[in-house]
Every structure is written in C-alpha cells, then in structure tokens.
C-alpha cells in the first residue's frame, strides 16, 4: 500500500506487511461500532471514541490496482494523487490548503484492493471535511497540466520506493512471479513504462467507473455518535445520485501452481544477501471457515517476534541468520499470502544464504510433520487477543481496520467476531493450514545478492567500507 505523501520514513515492504498482519482486525466484540447503508448504496460506519475532541474521517473505495484495465497499471494510485487537484467548485490544491488551515491532517493510500482518503481533525470541523470529500467523489476537474506534473511526481515516488532500492526491486519481481494470472502481480504504483503512458482519458474513465456512492464506504471514528453522523452523512453523501449497483469484482483467477519459482537479483548496491519467500494462500474473504484464523496463528508461531520458531532456530540456536521472520497477509479480496524472510549474519555470502534457506525449510517441515504445541497456540492467541486492547487506544488504526476489511469482502460482524474465531483455532488446524499452504509449488523465493559474492575483497570500497564513508 502506498500513500499520497511520504511519512517520515516508510517501512520496507516487508515491515509494512508484517505490521498489517499483526494488527489484523484485532477488534474487541464489545466496541459499539454502528453501520448503516444509505439509499444510494453508500455504507457508513461509526466508531465512537470520545476521549479527545478529534475525529478521523475516511472514505474508502472498493477499487485498487487489481481492478485496473490491462496495460494501465498504476492508474488507481495515480487517480488517488489527482483527487487532490481541483473540482468544479474547489480550485486546484485548495482542498489540502483548507484541511491544513483548519488544523487537519490528511493523506490517502492505495492498495491492490482499495483506495482510501482521510482527514484527522477537530470534531467541529468534521462537516467541512464531509463537504469537501463528498464533492470530489463526483466533481473532479483535471487539466492536462495536472496530469503531466503529477505523473512526474508519481515517477519520482516510484524511483524513491522501488528503483533506488534493490530490495524494493526484488519485492516487485517476486510478486510478479508469484501470480501467474491474477493482477496482484502488478505493482500498485504501476510499471514505469505504463505510468508514463497514463493520460487524462484513462484516468477519467477509471474515475467515472469506480468513484460512485455504491462503491464507497464512509468511516468516521472519534468524538461522534451515529445519531450525530447520520444527518451529516445524508446531507453530503446521501444526496449523490446512485449510478446503480456495482458489478461484482471478478478478477482473473490463479491456476493451480505447478512449480516452485526462484528469482535472483544481483546488484553491486546490495550490502548483504537476504532471502524472502512468499506463498499464495487463502484470504479472510475466500477462506474456508477457520482457515484464515489458523494462518494468522501459524504465522505468529512461525515468525512473529524473537520467540518465534524461525528466530529461535536460525538466529538464536544455529546463529546462522541475523534476522528471520514471517507474516500472513489475509486481508485481500482474492488471495492471501504468507511471507518469510531472513538474512545471514554479517559478512556471509551465498553459501550461508543456502544454509539459511535449508534451515527455513527444516522449520517448515517440522511444523507440517509434527504440528505445533498447544502452548504455542495458547501464547499466539494471547498475543493476538491482547492486541485488541491496545488497538482501542488508536482511533486511526481502528478506522483503518474496518476500511480494509469492508473493501476486501468482510463485514462489520466478521471483525467483531474475529476474537472468538481466533479462540476457536486448534493446534490441528494450524498444522492443516501449514500442510495445505506451505507447499513449495505455491511459492516464489527471492534472493538478493551482492555482485560477485565470492570476491568480496575486490568489491567497490563503497560496499566494503560503506559505513565509514
């Protein structure tokens, strides 16, 4: 997922995914979240939190990079940037300046499955935000100049995130190799050659098709009640004419994978070798009952934190890796994924990377053959369920969890019942999902290698003594 502005420092793709999975709709059942749908099909969710006179106002669209027409990768994210240009009544750039003048903070972000816009602001400015946000749902007005300048901005964003970083480039290649047919293989930001081709026509067509009330969800968290929000929601969003129900989001499906794949990126700018592997798996929206929950627990036991099996085996006991971990990303409309990553200790090369990979394989094999212990399952449940308490402290994160769930085929009820479904997972189920999904043929293994690993002594001084430059 990528954002309109850059945050102080963005996480590596890996870190970000890990974060998402660890906070996976950890929501306590007793939270009085309310939802209703207006006549034009727009859903509204209210998440009350009266501790501070502040609200988080978000509009989510059920559209992301996986809904883009072929050959137009990046158009969903590009459009997200362009929504900050003008409308029929708001001058270009004025949206953000108004938010700022009113003490608000804003951003937007795009993933494969959703696009979302938000402002965090004092409660008494909520109505103004709703007025502005509802306006740009249908009244966007773009000039050719807007397209050209903002396209340049997006190419710079791509350079920062991907092209300047060997790790970013490898991640992109791994995902492209992982999906044989599904558009999850395309980068959300788009391929550079396609970004450069995006034009007003493509953007406008995409906007008209997907930015409509029946495809949108309003989420307001903070110092507000459903009684207070309902008339405002009707006044600003409820009046937008319905364009009829949206067509189902049907993307090309994946065939049954037949072969494990490997992707290697060798670059003199790789400081130390590393490995990542991704398996396609079930998502919360398409999984059999209990499967996604078992995958969350599996990933927790396998690679979350320093007490996990991967960290304990590779880093603590064998001392062959400097770091090792895993994530499960189940909040997706179609397919979820399980990822693993590790890096050998400083100063090691290709042979050590092979040893790291062999150990990862051994850890996986043990889980498949022998399962996990009841204690491990109990500890994982305790961690996941405790996170629901911490989550209540953060209205922005709570709002995001609802938005992600509702744009990836889940319901408010699913979120609220998540703790009890986690409680119900057995050690046997964890072993079953490991057996089902941690199959080599479901995976792509990505290797990041310094150029000429075997000749490290002759590497450019920037690599060898880089920390002293």
């Amino acid at each position: 997922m990528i954002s309109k502005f850059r945050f102080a420092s963005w996480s590596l793709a890996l870190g970000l995914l890990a974060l998402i999975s660890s906070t996976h709709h950890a929501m306590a059942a007793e939270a009085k979240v309310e939802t209703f749908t207006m006549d034009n099909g727009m859903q509204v969710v209210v998440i009350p939190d009266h501790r501070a006179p502040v609200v988080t106002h978000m509009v989510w669209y059920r559209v992301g990079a996986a809904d883009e027409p072929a050959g137009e990768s990046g158009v969903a994210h590009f459009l997200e940037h362009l929504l900050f240009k003008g409308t029929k009544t708001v001058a270009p750039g004025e949206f953000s300046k108004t938010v700022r003048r009113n003490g608000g903070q804003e951003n937007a972000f795009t993933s494969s499955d959703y696009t979302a816009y938000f402002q965090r602001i004092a409660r008494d400015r909520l109505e103004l935000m709703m007025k502005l946000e509802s306006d740009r749902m249908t009244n966007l007005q773009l000039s050719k100049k807007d397209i050209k300048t903002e396209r340049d901005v997006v190419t710079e964003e791509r350079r920062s995130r991907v092209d300047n970083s060997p790790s970013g480039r490898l991640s992109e290649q791994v995902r492209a190799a992982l999906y044989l047919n599904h558009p999850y293989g395309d980068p959300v930001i788009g391929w550079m050659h396609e970004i450069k081709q995006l034009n007003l026509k493509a953007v406008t067509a995409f906007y008209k098709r997907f930015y409509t009330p029946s495809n949108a969800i309003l989420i307001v968290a903070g110092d507000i009640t459903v009684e207070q929000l309902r008339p405002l929601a009707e006044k600003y969003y409820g009046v937008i004419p319905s364009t009829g129900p949206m067509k189902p989001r049907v993307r090309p499906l994946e065939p049954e994978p037949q072969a494990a794949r490997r992707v290697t990126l060798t670059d003199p700018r790789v400081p130390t070798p590393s490995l990542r592997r991704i398996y396609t798996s079930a998502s919360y929206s398409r999984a059999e009952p209990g499967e996604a929950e078992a995958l969350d627990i599996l990933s927790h036991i396998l690679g979350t934190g320093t007490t996990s099996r991967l960290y304990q085996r590779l880093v603590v006991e064998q001392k062959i890796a400097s770091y090792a971990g895993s994530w499960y990303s189940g909040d997706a409309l179609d397919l979820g994924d399980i990822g693993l990553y590790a890096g050998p200790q400083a100063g090691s090369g290709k042979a050590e990377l092979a040893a790291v990979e062999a150990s990862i394989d051994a850890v996986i094999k043990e889980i498949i053959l022998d399962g996990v212990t009841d204690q491990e399952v109990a500890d994982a449940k305790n961690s996941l369920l405790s996170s629901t308490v911490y989550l209540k402290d953060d209205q922005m994160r709570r709002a995001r969890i609802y938005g992600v769930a509702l744009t990836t085929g889940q319901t408010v009820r699913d979120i609220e019942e998540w703790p009890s479904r986690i409680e119900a997972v057995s050690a046997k189920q964890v072993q079953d999902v490991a057996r089902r999904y941690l199959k080599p043929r479901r995976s792509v293994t990505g290797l990041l290698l310094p150029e000429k690993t075997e000749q490290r002594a002759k590497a450019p001084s920037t690599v060898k003594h880089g920390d002293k430059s």
Partner: protein
Amino acid sequence: MKHLIVFPIAVRSLLALGVIAILQLSVAKIAHAIEIQQVKSPGGITAWLVEDHSIPLMSMRFAFKGGWANEPEEQQGATHFLAGMLDEGAGELNSKQYQTRQKQLAMKLSFRARADHFYGSFQALTKHRDASAAMLADALTVPRFDDVPFQRIRSQIVLNIKSNSQDPERVASKNWLKLMFAGHPYGRARRGTAEKLGALTPADLRGLTKNLFAKKGLKIAVVGDINADELGKLLDRVFSKLPAEGNITKLVEAKVTAKPAVQIIDRNIPQSVIQFGHAGLKRDHPDFVPAYVLNFILGGGGFGSRLTEEIREKRGLTYSVYSYLSPYDHGALFVGGASTQNARAGETVKIIRQELERMANEGPTAKELADAKTYMTGSYALRFDTSKKIAGQLLAIQTDDLGVEYVEKRNELIIAVTLEDLKRLAKQLLKPGALVMTIVGKPEGVDAKEAKGG
C-alpha cells in the same frame, strides 16, 4: 454504550500524593482538554500523570539524561547497543525466558538512544500491570548482558550498519551530519562502527547503565488506567533502586563551522537524494517558536508549504520535499531534504536555494502566517489522541524544560507570533549562502564544491 471520560480543561499540580492546587486555564477552543497530575512517589520519584480509565492499559515513557553523544569516543555505538540489549535477559530470566514472559504478559517495552537522552517506552495491560512493571524494573536494574545475546545483538547492529551504507537517504544524512558537526560527538554515527563495536564487552554496557540510569534528570510521563497512588508504588518499584546520580560526560557546545559546500557522493542510482541545511536554533532560544512557525511555512509537512508548492506541485520534481528544525541540547540545525531523478537534480537544487533566498529576503506573507497559525493551533489536539502519544508529548515537554503549563500555553505562544517577528527572523535564520548540501546519486547540473565525499 460505555461512557468514556472527557477531561476537564485544567492543569492540576499534585505534590506528594495530594492535590495542592488547580490552575484553571483557557485554551484555544479545539485544544484537547487533559488533566495533568504531578505525582511524587513515597520514594521521591516524580512523574506526570494523565488518568484515563476507559481502556485497561497504561502507557509510560521516560528519559534518562545522557545519550549516545555522551559516550566516550572509544565506545562509540555502545549506547545504541545498550538499547538493544535491555530485553535480552534480566535477573533470573535469560533472553528467551525474558522475551517469552514479555509476550505472555502482552507488555510492550522498547528503548531508544538519542543524542542527549536515553528513552524508554513501556505499555502494560491493567491485569498484568505489576508483573509487567517488575520486568521493566529488572531490565533497568539487573540486566544480564549474557555473552550469547551480546554477540547476537552486536552482529545484528553490524549488519544494520552495513545495510545502511547502501541506503541513499541514510548515507546522505550521515555524511551531512558529519560535515555539520565536524569534530563534535553529534557528528558521529550513533550506531558506531563494526570495529568499535567489536571491541566492546558486556562490562562496558554494564558500566554504561551505571552512568546513565540515575534518578537525577529522570523524566517520566504516564497515561492511562492507573491512579496517582498506584503510580507512586509502581514508580518506586521500577526506579527507586537506581543511584541518585549518574556519571555523564559534559558536552561542549557544538558550533556549526562547516563552510558552504556541495558534497556529492557518487552512487549508481536513478534518483539523487539531497540533504541540505545549516545552523538552526536551540529549543531554549527565545525565537524558537517563531522559527518553528517560519519553517512550517517554508517546508513543513504536506501541501501548502513553499517548498512543496514550488518543487512538487508546480514542477513535479519530487515526491517529497521538506525542512525542519533539529535542536539538540548543545547545538541546533536547520535541515531539509528532497529526492529527484538525476537529470533534474540541478533544477531542484536551484529552486531550493531560490526559495530560501526569497523567504530570507521577504519573509512570509500575512496570509501564510494566518494559515500557519490556524493549522498549528488547530492540529495540536491531534497529538493527544492516543495514550502513547499523550505520554510522548508530556515527556518532551519535560525534557525540553517547558513547564507543566506548556500544554495550555502552547497555542497562545503560536498566536502571539507576528509578521514582523518572522521577517526579522527569516533574515537571521535562513542563510541560503551558507547551505551545506550532501547529494547521493549521479546528480546532473550540480557542481561539487569544497567537500568531496566518498
């Protein structure tokens, strides 16, 4: 619906454990209303507390006086290393036992070494509060520094240093700081070097804890499901065994003597990463608040700042351009950054210089100042919407020595800034002719001047 507490608008001072005085203060109308209690434990440890019983957890942040800049040069990196070692076993528990226990308690504990302070962040569920606090106490008072985790964490840091050596933004930042604070500890790399880390021993880290972890200069902020009485006991449990005083090497003032320069660090990447700046203002400088407002107009986050408008919005040169004030206890910088494709680096650098020049010469407009004020005062409440964030704010106010009334006064200070202040200050603070730039990449249209990096 469960009713949540909204705090009355007041700053309350508690000395010992009783309420002594209540100050009624007005705030800008949308500022968050919080009630700060100053708590003193039976053992004499003081902390600021905001009670909030709506969620069964507490957040605590604390800071010891002394950071990585205070470590002896031969132990460079030790303080950062120490921050990574405190949850690697303490008291009866070895590393794995300690971390397993932490997980079972669902407590959150992390440490961070900054230049002038050593920070801790601790969060605990109410049901596990005492057991979690005991874990924290052990981390601070009886850390083990067992050899195996010592080696492990050290090798992780060494790998990190190596990784960062290829991260263009870190390379830019590190080299730029080295130019700005040449010869002063602030210019050193906080992670140290592989060589210096290799020479450290567990005894060195133990010695460091004795120097750093002391009651004198300790600042604590707590927010959440705990009352003053309970907090007093917790503070004694965690901190009372620490020595009254530590042993921190005094730092000399870090004067920025770097000459104007453009340092180009050649890297084969498609995008040039630019860091720029010059001397800034310390937090206790009488002009700090106006300078903060001035910088917001020039390069503060998001749309509307001059740098973003000129460099991103008008010309599409970058995804991100920004500037900020970076005060230290014994020095201060004004820092900015941007990234752009190599071919447009020259143009980007030119506009950065032009915009600094224009601001220095003309200052901001009345409208820019008015808009900055409404943003800055209106958004202050957004820093107080989670217990962890509130604790962070209250700690910063203490380490900056701003006084407990600052939460209430802060917006008034912003409102009091005048256009004349900013015009005068712009000339004094912004020195486009004194800019020191570090550019990592293959920038075109930029000539290296003076400093040459590698």
